[in-house]
């Protein structure tokens, strides 16, 4: 397991946001944290990134316990729910920020920024500011910015929530393909099961701070482990989707 959470507990002012959370994500896999709003998904992601500290339990990344390591030294790229692009910096400066902080050479930074702009097909938009971009473009910039310092683990919080329903599906395919191409271990948060089914290799279902089930999309649909999962997951929708996917595949 590249990421392993062991018996994590976290409370906010007495409210239990994470309750004995245990799960692992394999290297190179794309996992989805799926659950209703308020079920503690963001909290888990923030603890992996070091933005919040668990009250108890161990966070392991690449075999090392990272609880006491600051987030910036965990080799993580983070895509925030509303992207959190630096609004007074251009797209290129946003992407370059992490490299500049690491005091990389000017030339190296420029090459890397160009490479990433090309990856997200925004070569000509490097001089724009975030407010001059569409929602989809912003998401792509956030993605590129997170990838710039070559992290080993990518965390994305509701990456499609702020995007028009129409473009969402397109972007979903794009992101899955990108992550596959870069080959980076990734965890993304969503409350939309269709999204999780379509994008993830592994789905981790959360409910009221607890993990209800971990498994492939198929396993979760056909063998729900708890009442909550069988109620939360809409099997018909999954099957319609699976049929669609296989007809596209053939």
């Amino acid at each position, binding site marked *: 397991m590249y990421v392993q959470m062991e018996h994590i507990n976290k409370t906010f002012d007495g409210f239990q946001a994470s309750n004995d959370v245990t799960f692992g994500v394999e290297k190179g896999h794309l996992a989805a944290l799926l659950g209703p709003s308020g079920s503690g998904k963001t909290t888990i992601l923030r603890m992996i990134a070091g933005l919040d500290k668990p009250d108890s339990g161990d966070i392991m990344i690449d075999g090392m316990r990272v609880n006491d390591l600051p987030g910036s030294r965990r080799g*993580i790229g983070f895509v925030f729910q509303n992207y959190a692009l630096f609004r007074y910096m251009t797209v290129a400066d946003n992407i370059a920020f992490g490299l500049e902080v690491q005091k990389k050479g000017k030339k190296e930074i420029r090459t890397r920024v160009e490479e990433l702009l090309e990856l997200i097909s925004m070569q000509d938009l490097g001089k724009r500011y975030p407010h001059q971009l569409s*929602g989809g473009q912003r998401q792509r910039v956030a993605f590129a910015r997170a990838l710039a*310092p070559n992290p080993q683990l990518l965390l994305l919080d509701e990456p499609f929530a702020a995007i028009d329903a129409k473009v969402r599906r397109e972007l979903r395919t794009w992101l899955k393909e990108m992550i596959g191409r870069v080959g980076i271990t990734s965890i993304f948060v969503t409350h939309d099961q269709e999204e999780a089914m379509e994008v993830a290799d592994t789905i981790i279902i959360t409910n009221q701070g607890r993990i209800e089930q971990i498994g492939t999309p198929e396993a979760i649909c056909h063998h729900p482990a708890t009442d909550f999962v069988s109620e939360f997951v809409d099997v018909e929708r999954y099957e319609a989707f699976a049929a669609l996917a296989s007809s596209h595949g053939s």
Partner: protein
Amino acid sequence: MAQKRQRTYQQDIVGDGILAVQKVREPHTEASGKGIRCGLIGICALFLFVMLVLPLAVVVINALRDGWAAYQEAVMDEYTVRALQLTLFTAVTAVAVNTVFGVFAAFLLSKFYFRGRQILAALIDIPFSISPVIAGLVFILTFGNVGWMGDFLKAHGIRIVFAVPGVVLATVFVTFPFVFRELFPVLNAQGKDEEEAAALMGAGWFTIFRKITFPHMKWALLYGVILCAARALGEFGAVSVISGHLRGKTNTLPLHVEILYNEFNTTAAFAVSSILVILAVLILIARTIVEWKKA
């Protein structure tokens, strides 16, 4: 009908081909609306004229009543010059102290969560809710001869009450919340995602402040500084209590105006007032420019 519809809705191709339909506000064309608007503008203008423009004009006219020479004499008077110097010194000090304090407090209270942050934010507002006269008295009771730090200060030969430090202290107190109050809502609304994103990439707090927080707050900061300066230049109540009105020593311009006026030296009082009016107009201009830039 169809034509009207086309005019009130504007279709716009945004970014990568999303069709956005925006409703354009219909112009207000009713005659009655126009009448009400003119009436309100009229009342407003009349009120401003009676309350603001007229008194200011009176200041200038009275200041020049006995001619230019008398005006010059009053303004160049030794005590007036000293009062102006003290006022400027006090204002610059108060602005400097409160800017540094306000920036740190706003940064701290908007970007970090800790126990008691609401209490701290409320404490900063105290000078807004306390009468300046009482603020002055509190300082006398704290630092004066009979105050509870009196013996200590006397033993070390430090004079605060009836001395320049007291004047500065009182002004700092009264103008304390201005910069903070301007900055805090702006920084709070920004959230802390951008800061967290930068921190995750390994940026230190100073880099984060310089590259992310500061660009966001610079106009609000300048605006707060201007408000703070305006208040510091004009402060009367607190300073009046703590200064002891020592001419040429602890007299600020507003106090000096009062002294001259009480001595029936009306022309001089108005002449000195006109200095404050000029400073106020300069600040007003600066404020308008900043407001325009901020928008």
